[in-house]
């Protein structure tokens, strides 16, 4: 194969001038991916927890709303949602707000649209996990909480959610890994995250193999850390004498 391997490319100054290297570009993308995914994940957890709980409450308006929410965000392709948030929603906002958004720093615009998009898309999936966690509890637990004199919110808070959350740590790990992988979609609106930087590097250096191997390794690195982190969490919240406990 007549390919000129050149791993030294990462240390070369970029063709755009300045004293940045291609490695610096990569690192910028790496940081962007992490910042975007983590912030979206935190929102997804919070919103997903609330929506997931609402799906299980005995009020048909609340649970109906939550069901509709989940179906909307789960059934539209992520890419389409991203375009909606970036291109369409700012036009639908009240003119003042829309204009304010459009006048901010373009990177911030891309970041905000990407964050909201990833967060809400993932929150629908988190909500489903939360719901399944709650539904997998023995039905008597809710009655036991109520019978002690807890109100329904207290029963969720002290009895059902602590167990439900423990049960769904493994599936939540997958969602957490997914959000990092899904963040690559945001390169389509120009956000310079890891995948976008990889492609940019190819354009500037014509070294696609090195570039995408580096991108691959960076994603793997992130996900290995997430996996070990979540495994630690799982071990930490284990209930003695219960399934998977010691």
């Amino acid at each position, binding site marked *: 194969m007549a390919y000129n391997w050149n791993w030294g490319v990462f240390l070369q100054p970029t063709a755009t001038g300045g004293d940045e290297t291609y490695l610096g570009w990569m690192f910028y993308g790496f940081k962007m991916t992490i910042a975007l995914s983590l912030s979206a994940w935190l929102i997804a957890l919070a919103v997903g927890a609330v929506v997931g709980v609402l799906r299980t409450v005995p009020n048909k308006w609340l649970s109906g709303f939550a069901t509709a929410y989940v179906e909307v965000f789960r059934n539209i392709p992520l890419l389409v949602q991203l375009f909606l948030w970036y291109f369409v929603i700012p036009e639908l906002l009240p003119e003042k707000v829309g204009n304010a958004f459009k006048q901010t720093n373009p990177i911030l615009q891309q970041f905000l649209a990407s964050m909201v998009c990833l967060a809400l898309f993932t929150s629908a999936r988190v909500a489903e996990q939360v719901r399944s966690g709650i539904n997998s509890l023995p039905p008597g637990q809710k009655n036991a909480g109520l019978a002690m*004199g807890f109100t329904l919110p207290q029963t969720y808070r002290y009895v059902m959610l*602590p167990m439900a959350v*423990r049960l769904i740590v493994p599936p939540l790990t997958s969602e957490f890994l997914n959000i990092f992988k899904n963040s690559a979609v945001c390169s389509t609106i120009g956000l310079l995250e890891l995948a976008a930087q990889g492609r940019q590097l190819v354009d500037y250096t014509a070294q696609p193999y090195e570039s995408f191997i580096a991108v691959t390794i960076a994603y793997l690195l992130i996900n290995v850390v997430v996996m070990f982190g979540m495994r630690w969490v799982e071990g930490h919240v284990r209930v003695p004498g219960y399934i998977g406990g010691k």
Partner: protein
Amino acid sequence: MISMNKVSKQYGSFHVLTDCTTQVQKGEVIVVCGPSGSGKSTLIKCVNGLEPFQSGEIIVNGVSVGDPRTNLSKLRSTVGMVFQNFELFPHMSIIDNLGIAQTKVLGRSQEQAREKGFKLLDRVGLREQAEKYPGQLSGGQQQRVAIARALAMDPICMLFDEPTSALDPEMVNEVLDVMTELAQEGMTMMCVTHEMGFAKRVASRVIFMDQGRIVEDDSKEAFFEHARSERAQQFLAKILHH
């Protein structure tokens, strides 16, 4: 203490309870028995409002359970309940299981709750298990903890929903002993159970249910010696003669 008047409940066209009427006086121990599906569990779950009912009236300590203005949580905090499957909170230690509702519902301090908890664990003979988790205890031990947990709220009466049905036979007695002791101390109790020995020892009255109706409601002597309905006689013959 507990008064039920023509309580009826249905799911669609299926009648789970039909015109159930009975009274429970302070200090009485009522055993509720009957074939499975006869509505026993549903009946006692109506007493603390865990099961809604469509018509009739239940008054517990002067408060109407079915009244939408009733603060059900407050009512429930005064009525202890023990379930077939224990329903301890698996993520909390035994002592926390006893303490959580004392602090969050009754507003007792952490220390008061623990003290009360230890006292009750002593009473059911499980003090050494205080820091363990429910999953580490046997079924009989878990059910004794569940009784202690209900007592921690200083209930005015106790409801038992088949408290020994999920237990291995050798653990049944340790739970019945605790219940017997409680009955002898004068606790007002409604127990759904098939333990006829327990009924003969401590019951003030026996209620026999069939197809959602209270068929017999009589003193234990009258019930065991000459049950009036044929259905109750068949039931007794089946469960006593083997």
